[in-house]
């Protein structure tokens, strides 16, 4: 692992809480862009969620989209400028609740874009409500007695869901809760961008990520939560690879 700040990130403090997975993932995305030498060709979409301010951190062009609409906006960007590198960065509410339709259809059209999907099983920005990826029995501010499959359904597994779509080139689920996971996550993200460069189609990397604040856990426990609870419900690995 390299510790120098990637050129694709500005040298500024972020607003993320300590132990949050967004900061780590930002670094991995920026590193991948640096490694591929494409910073000046990148256009990113910022989500509505805790990463809404990513335009303050990423040293590249960024468009701030409506909640959940990034894949549609990215479609517009990429279709008009096919030789630019377009990626969306979205939370679970943004991607798998309000933006489900945009996600599925961008994937199904095989849009040649890269999606970095942060799954922290909760709505961070709005203060800890249920997300589509919230796990059974997980307590949130809108599931005070824990998520109940009979009332709220089971958590949505995005990689599994998208794996049946022919337009999808690459899907992998990774985590950022251990040093080893971080290394693998970096590889996956870089590969996803490489697929876009090669014109292979839609690529998505799902990152299991910590939200100590809304899980109401100290950072160390939050990483354990990913390792012990989330990885069981959301197994890591490659879900699709067109090669």
């Amino acid at each position, binding site marked *: 692992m390299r510790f120098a700040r990637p050129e694709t990130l500005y040298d500024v403090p972020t*607003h993320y*809480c300590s132990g949050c997975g967004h900061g780590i993932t930002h670094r991995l995305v920026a590193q991948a862009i640096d490694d591929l030498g494409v910073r000046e060709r990148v256009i990113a979409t910022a989500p509505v969620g805790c990463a809404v301010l990513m335009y303050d951190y990423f040293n590249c062009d960024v468009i701030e989209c409506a909640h959940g609409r990034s894949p549609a906006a990215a479609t517009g960007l990429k279709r008009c400028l096919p030789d630019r590198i377009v990626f969306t960065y979205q939370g679970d509410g943004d991607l798998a609740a309000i933006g489900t339709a945009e996600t599925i259809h961008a994937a199904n059209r095989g849009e040649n874009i890269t999606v970095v999907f942060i799954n922290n099983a909760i709505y961070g920005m709005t203060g800890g409500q249920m997300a589509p990826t919230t796990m059974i029995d997980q307590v949130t501010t809108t599931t005070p007695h824990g998520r109940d499959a009979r009332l709220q359904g089971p958590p949505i597994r995005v990689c599994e869901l998208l794996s049946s779509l022919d337009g999808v080139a690459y899907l992998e689920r990774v985590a950022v809760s251990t040093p080893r996971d971080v290394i693998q996550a970096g590889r996956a993200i870089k590969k996803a961008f490489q697929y876009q460069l090669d014109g292979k189609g839609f690529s998505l990397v799902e990152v299991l990520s910590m939200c100590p604040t809304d899980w109401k856990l100290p950072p160390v426990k939050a990483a354990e939560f990913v390792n012990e609870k989330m990885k069981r419900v959301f197994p890591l690995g490659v879900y699709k690879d067109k090669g």
Partner: protein
Amino acid sequence: MNDSETRIVIAGFGGQGVVLTGNVIARAAMIDGRNVTLMVSYGAEMRGGTANATVVLSDGPIASPYVETPDVAIVLNRPSLDRFEPVMAPNGHVIVNRSLIDRDVEREDLTVTSVEATSIAHELGNVRATNMVAMGAFAGATKLVGAEALAEAVRLAFQEKSAKLVELNTRALHAGLDAVTS
């Protein structure tokens, strides 16, 4: 605007019980039969910096729950003092948690009540009662809410949690009152 209106800010780190303190003061004012509003900082305002609650007390109708220039500030940490000192109303009153604030109040028009709130709470057995000590000092120094009403509001706030918490926070309230009145 209206003469009987007092605008109070309680500020500290998130986790110092600022919201709870605002709630207790507001409920005590209700028990005293006064008009009261409470507003708590929300959303992105809470991230990173200080959390704050604003209470407006009045005998007449309250025009705005939103406070730009507080008459009274209970500041539990240094960033809160830095933020609110410059915007205090002329001749306002600041209750300072001396344990965590290593500088003096600079404005000469302000009345200052210093209390070692965190140290006192520590002696009582739990630093989390810092807010209640500071609230006691506020009540003792400003007389804006009655001590009995506050004790009742503390009881109501903690009774559903545990008798121990009622006891601890009541002692903290009284320790704060004593610290400024003895």
